[in-house]
């Protein structure tokens, strides 16, 4: 348990603790937990260490619960159908090899979730009740506690909760481990491993959010997934892909709660203020749905809503219950105002953009085995690129694939090097010692404002141009220099400084990606005012790598179906 009083009396010195493990998992979320479980199923000799900034029982995307399993192969469908669907939704910019290996594992991962105790809706004959071709109805409230309990039962897995990973330890192009900070104690960890999985999720908090004031963290993506995994990779020279395919969620206004339960569950359609259903006009891809709503609003035909008035009283009550299992603030909103969905249509809005490889294709450029371009470093879940629409079950499968591939490093120990962390330690301690007129919060708000205004945030209806991006790049650079003069009075505040710096690293790469793709392939997700059309010339991946402090853009061909991709 954590006592704030005790911490404020601590010194500004960090003690250094060293830990050794065989397989190091960074982030004990969906993919991280799945990787640990699957590693232990396949191997009986090696140790696993999960390092998690919060507590694995309720961390990351699954903390509040989820509404459905969005990735499942329904009877009569094939994994290839899933690949086709995801590629179409991504307008062709998705890796067939990654999608297929993910899709092939979805149903087995689902069965394992059920075995852990997850409630999945069944038909009278015992088969799963599917919602459309790919979804299963569940009670997703306790999905994370179930995964965490299974992990905690594994004797070879050690979990370090409340430890925040900061950087990789590298030798040439091989990963040797990571450096981490305790979120509460004055401890700097040095973690050594034979293989490492990055499973720190995607990035929220880059752009000014829907509610920039008191409720600034009432956002769709967890505000605690700050993009650490991307930033560590970028700094270490890993190749990243498709950062420009941002994800913008279409959500219930105010609470930013999911809309799928309304749209797919009770068949609520998107209508504008004139009562017109505008879905068909803009296409029903994920980005098309956001774009339609944005365009209707811009044309003065807002507010746009999901038309729920007319649902039955039973449906009304069922929806209130369903939202308690995943987004309880929505139920609170309905009931405190008395305006439940049968009485009032639910207004919808686009969120600020996120970088999240579980929905779009942003993240590490990986081999079919989910190994990054750094040897021994794997990536799975929202942090891994090329494989959109993976959701919960896809993140589980990617964790499993990575864990299986990491096994090959168990007999290939990395070189031993002498690591000197004194400089890192000194820099971190300086933040605890020094005074500053700057506040981390203010700089974060400044960063979000820059991204919002010049790199396609809510304010510009997600639109940007080469000129606006040049301004964004310049301002983010200046802010990066200022972010070195911050001060912290607690470990948590020290972590906030590191998170801001990570986000700035990611913003720089993101701006370079947005600028590189000179077309508009996905409305809203990457909407250019200077290149408003889609172009066949851009049927390729936009990748990047940090070389000598500069973001270098690499264009790569699409990966043909049936190919196993190796670096």
């Amino acid at each position: 348990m954590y006592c704030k009083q005790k911490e404020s009396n601590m010194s500004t010195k960090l003690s250094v603790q060293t830990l050794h493990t065989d397989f190091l998992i960074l982030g004990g979320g969906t993919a991280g937990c799945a990787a640990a479980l699957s590693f232990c199923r396949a191997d009986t000799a090696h140790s696993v260490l999960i390092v998690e900034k919060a507590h694995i029982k309720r961390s990351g995307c699954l903390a509040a619960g989820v509404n459905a399993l969005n990735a499942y192969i329904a009877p009569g469908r094939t994994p290839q159908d899933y690949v086709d669907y995801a590629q179409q939704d991504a307008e062709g910019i998705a890796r067939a090899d990654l999608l297929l290996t993910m899709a092939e594992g979805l149903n087995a991962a689902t069965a394992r979730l059920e075995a852990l105790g997850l409630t999945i809706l069944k038909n009278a004959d015992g088969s799963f009740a599917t919602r459309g071709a790919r979804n299963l109805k569940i009670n997703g409230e306790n999905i994370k506690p179930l995964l965490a309990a299974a992990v905690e039962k594994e004797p070879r897995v050690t979990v370090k909760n409340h430890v925040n990973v900061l950087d990789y330890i590298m030798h040439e192009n091989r990963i040797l481990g990571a450096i981490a900070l305790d979120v509460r104690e004055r401890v700097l960890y040095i973690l050594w491993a034979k293989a490492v999985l990055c499973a720190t999720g995607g990035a929220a908090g880059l752009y000014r959010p829907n509610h920039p004031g008191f409720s600034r963290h009432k956002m769709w993506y967890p505000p605690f997934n700050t993009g650490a995994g991307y930033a560590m990779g970028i700094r270490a020279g890993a190749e990243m892909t498709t950062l420009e395919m941002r994800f913008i969620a279409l959500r219930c206004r105010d609470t930013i709660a999911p809309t799928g339960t309304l749209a797919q569950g009770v068949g609520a359609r998107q209508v504008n203020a004139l009562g017109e259903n505008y879905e068909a006009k803009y296409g029903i891809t994920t980005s098309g749905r956001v774009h339609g709503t944005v365009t209707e609003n811009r044309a003065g035909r807002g507010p746009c809503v999901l038309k729920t008035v007319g649902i039955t009283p039973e449906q009304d009550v069922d929806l209130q219950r369903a939202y308690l299992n995943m987004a309880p603030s929505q139920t609170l909103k309905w009931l405190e105002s008395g305006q439940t969905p049968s009485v009032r249509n639910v207004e919808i809005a686009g969120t600020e953009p996120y970088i999240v490889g579980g929905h779009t294709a942003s993240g590490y450029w990986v081999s079919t085995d989910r190994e990054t371009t750094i040897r021994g470093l794997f990536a799975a879940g929202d942090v891994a690129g090329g494989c959109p629409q993976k959701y919960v079950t896809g993140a589980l499968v990617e964790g499993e694939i990575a864990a299986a591939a990491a096994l090959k490093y168990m007999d290939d120990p990395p070189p031993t090097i002498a690591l000197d962390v004194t400089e890192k330690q000194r820099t971190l301690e300086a933040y605890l010692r020094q005074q500053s007129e700057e506040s981390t919060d203010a700089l974060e708000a400044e960063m979000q404002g820059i991204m919002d205004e010049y790199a396609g945030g809510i304010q510009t209806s997600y639109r940007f141009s080469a000129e606006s991006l040049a301004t964004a790049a310049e301002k983010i650079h200046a802010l990066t220099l200022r972010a070195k003069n911050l001060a912290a009075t607690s470990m948590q505040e020290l972590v906030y400084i590191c998170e801001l710096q990570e986000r700035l690293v990611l913003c720089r790469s993101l701006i370079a990606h947005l600028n590189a793709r000179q077309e508009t392939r996905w409305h809203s997700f990457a909407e250019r005012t200077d290149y408003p059309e889609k172009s066949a010339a851009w049927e390729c991946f936009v990748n990047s790598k940090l070389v000598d402090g500069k973001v270098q853009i690499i264009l790569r061909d699409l990966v043909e179906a049936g190919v196993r991709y190796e670096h």
Partner: protein
Amino acid sequence: MSIRFTRALCIGCGACTEICPGSLLALDAQGKAFMAHPENCWGCASCLKECPVSAIALYLGADMGGLGGTLRVRREGTRLLWTIQKPDGTEITIPVDSREANHY
């Protein structure tokens, strides 16, 4: 978006300080839990579910249209009993059993 503690109910067990996915909660000098960073709350309600004495309530900030109501929860076996207190003080309790799937 944030949470509020009923101090008199808090037994200082620290369950909420462990579970918060943003590590935002702490115990004060009297051993009672408090929200150290209210503006950083995601509203996930993990702390509500973890608290053994239902000392925590969730509310919606005025900047997201909150009207002053609160949400609490109590666990009873596999059931979570959610109680919404409306701004006029009236309450509604909705039980949700983890063995029952969403219908939608």
